């Protein structure tokens, strides 16, 4: 379980806090949309949970442990349970699709035998079987993001964190990607997506956590992009 307890994050010289007094819980296996205008604090929330940054005050627990207190090895372990997907894909252009996905396993010290076995499975899951030898530049935006998802997925993370994964994609492609995330969630992975893709949010009727100006304004079990009440 992920638990934020009265978390506030202020950036140096940033004026008002990026996140103010946020308390929330997310159970393993959930599918959660983080919504809200740009600058609402969605990315900060994701960065705090990845422990890329530390909260100014408050505590974040995962699996009962305060992640601020994780030692080096435990912090690596924490991060390895999380698959990250980025708006700008962050693929290595000089590496093939296969190599980009394999990179996630290489970094963990997996053998080439394991890599040869795991990568095609991950590529198949995101619908890119047979594209392994292409370079990112040869793929469409939607396909590139699928490579990004495959790279996050290949290490079997407990949690998938996606920060505006469809921000650079058209509506149809975005919708397909959201369906992919739902499939991944059905496989047991917790999925947390910060997004502006209001139509997908409305259609999927998942849990919606809404942030505005750093404050939590709404948390609905089956919500829409905008507050309908």
């Amino acid at each position: 379980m992920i638990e934020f307890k009265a978390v506030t994050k202020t950036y140096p010289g940033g004026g008002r806090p990026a996140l103010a007094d946020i308390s929330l819980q997310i159970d393993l296996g959930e599918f959660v949309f983080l919504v809200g205008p740009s600058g609402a604090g969605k990315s900060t929330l994701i960065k705090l949970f990845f422990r890329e940054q530390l909260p100014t005050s408050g505590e974040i627990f995962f699996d009962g442990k305060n992640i601020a207190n994780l030692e080096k090895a435990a912090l690596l372990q924490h991060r390895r349970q999380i698959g990250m997907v980025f708006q700008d894909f962050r693929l290595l252009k000089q590496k093939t699709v296969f190599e980009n996905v394999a990179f996630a396993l290489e970094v963990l010290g997996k053998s080439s035998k394991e890599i040869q076995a795991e990568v095609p499975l991950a590529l198949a899951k995101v619908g890119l079987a047979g594209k392994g030898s292409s370079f990112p530049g040869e793929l469409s935006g939607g396909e590139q993001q699928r490579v990004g998802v495959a790279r996050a997925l290949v290490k079997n993370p407990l949690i998938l964190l996606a920060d505006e994964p469809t921000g650079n994609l058209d509506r149809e492609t975005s919708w397909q990607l959201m369906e992919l995330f739902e499939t991944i969630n059905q496989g047991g992975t917790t999925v947390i997506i910060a997004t502006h893709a209001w139509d997908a949010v409305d259609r999927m009727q998942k849990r919606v956590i809404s942030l505005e100006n750093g404050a939590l304004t709404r948390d609905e079990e089956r919500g829409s992009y905008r507050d309908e009440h």
Partner: protein
Amino acid sequence: MNINSLKYCLRESVVSLKRNFWLAVVTACIIAVSLAILGGFLLLTVNAGQFIRDVEANVEIGVFLEAEVDVQAVEQQLQQLSGVETITFVSKDDGLDDFSASLGDASLLAGLKGSENPLPDAFRVKTTDASLVSTLTETIRAIPGVEMADYGEELVGRLLKITNWLNKLFVGVSVLLALGAVFLIVTTIRLSVMARLEEIGIMKYLGASDWYIRFPFLLEGMAMGWVGTLASTAALGLAYSKLATSLQQDAFAFFIRPVTALEQLAPIYLGILILGTLMGGLGSLISVRKFLRV
């Protein structure tokens, strides 16, 4: 770090070295030059040390007696001292002959023979061990009837002064050169890091450990340091052995015996090699340090 990670790190360092090939070559060359100078100084110091020891080993203590003293009594006392190897008596007449001979014109001092001879009787004392010379001289000076005892302290002292000065110069120059070489490695590795900045960022998100990210750069820096020093030790070794051989064959340089014993030279060459490699590693670590914070 397991074997798969090691393979990855090796591959990445090779790729990186290829990418910055000429810069790596220049860096290695500068390391080579600076460590060759350092090595040259070290060899000079070792040889100076040997030269001083040679001089000391051949030193005799000149013991000059007071006039009208019982020569045999002094000789007995000298014989009782431990560490004395040989004692040669030089009478005042022999002394004058030697002196005349060294001047090359016997007639100059001819008038001083006999009772006019200003020189004292003397002994030449050779010690069993060069290190005993100075203490033994002190002891001999205290023997009654001994006017003065002397072993050319000034020469040895001057040599020591020169080598001390050389040592200081050598440390100073070496430190400067080493700093320059490390700085150059920092710069070279920084370029490698820049070329892979995006990759490093992604690696952090994928959960790579700091060492996993650092290691290829460490290898790269150490490789540059190692290749550079390997070249410099090879060049230095070759040049030095040539010089040593020619000095040994040169009739005019018979008094210089260059150090050729492997047990004295090997630590120098090996030390330079290790030092250069470590400098390469140090440069990389300095360079990579600040990029690791994600």
